């Protein structure tokens, strides 16, 4: 973090997150979803676009357990996964919903 008052140096100004801070998952309620997500990342050489479903699951878990404010998933950028027909969801055999 730059403390010098140099106008010439471009410095980074951190911005607060849009939706605030995640409450800590002290009890590990969503740990399985996190593990699934991490496993998916490892298998797909850390390609995020392959693991969007797992990240969506993790966020849904958080919302279920009051660890995140409930929001429609389109607002979180998961519109493309939502639009795909519910056959995807049925295939995944989600424990939620």
């Amino acid at each position, binding site marked *: 973090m730059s403390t010098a008052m140099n106008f010439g140096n471009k410095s980074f100004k*951190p911005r607060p997150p849009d939706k605030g801070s995640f409450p800590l998952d002290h009890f590990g309620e969503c740990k399985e979803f996190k593990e699934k997500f991490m496993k998916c990342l490892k298998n797909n050489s850390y390609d995020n676009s392959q693991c969007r479903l797992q990240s969506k699951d993790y966020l849904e878990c958080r919302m279920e357990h009051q660890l995140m404010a409930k929001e429609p998933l389109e607002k979180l950028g998961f519109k493309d996964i939502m639009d795909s027909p519910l056959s995807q969801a049925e295939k995944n055999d989600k424990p939620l919903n």
Partner: protein
Amino acid sequence: MVIISGVWTDLRTMLLPPCLLRPHASSMLSQCVQSLARCHAGRTLHSQTVHFLQRRTLPVHLQGRGNRGHSRKSKSQEQEDTKTRNRTVLTYIAAAGVGMIGLSYASVPLYRLYCQATGLGGAAVAGHDTSVVETMKPVKERVLKVLFNADTHASMQWNFRPQQTEIYLVPGETALAFYRAKNPTDKPIIGISTYNVVPFEAGQYFNKIQCFCFEEQRLNPHEEVDMPVFFYIDPEFDEDPRMARVNTITLSYTFFEAKEGQSLPLPGYSYK
């Protein structure tokens, strides 16, 4: 000047006799000229003054009667001229003054535009809208690598590290990343974190939807938690020519210990 002097020389030859009727003025003038010649005025100056004086004597003759009227008219005209000239100068100065005042008022939005264009200051960033998340389309051709880094302050005893070193994503796609923090001590420790994005210019496109920064997080003794960061990179990143060669972005979090009664100066973030 050359043409005029040529014309007057012709007239002078025609009007030479009447000129001789006033010998005194012309003799005085010629004496002046000769004294000029004797001085270090230079020959060209001497010849020019000769021409000038001969010119001056002629118009008076041409006018004939109304000699004094002409001079009075020229004087009043001169006064008029100076008056109008002064007025125009004053108008110009007043206009410049008003222009400066207007410029100082206009400088506020202009500076804001400049900040948006260059990314300096970071506060005035265009298009940082939460509704962008709904409508943004991922730019599938531009694959970026996001590296994750974790630091703690020297006196902070947590073990803090990222759970993945890198993630490949595209602008416009929301992504999830995890950090892990462990409190190995026997006392609860409250931590507070901040983040940094390198390169700095890419930082304005890096938007966090939700994370664990800027709020106090408490870890009980021997507790370990997963800390997620939910973020995306603005699709306009792909259109910025300065970002054309940027393919790697590093996100770095640093945890500090929060002491009782101390509050960090936060960037526009309000506690409830």
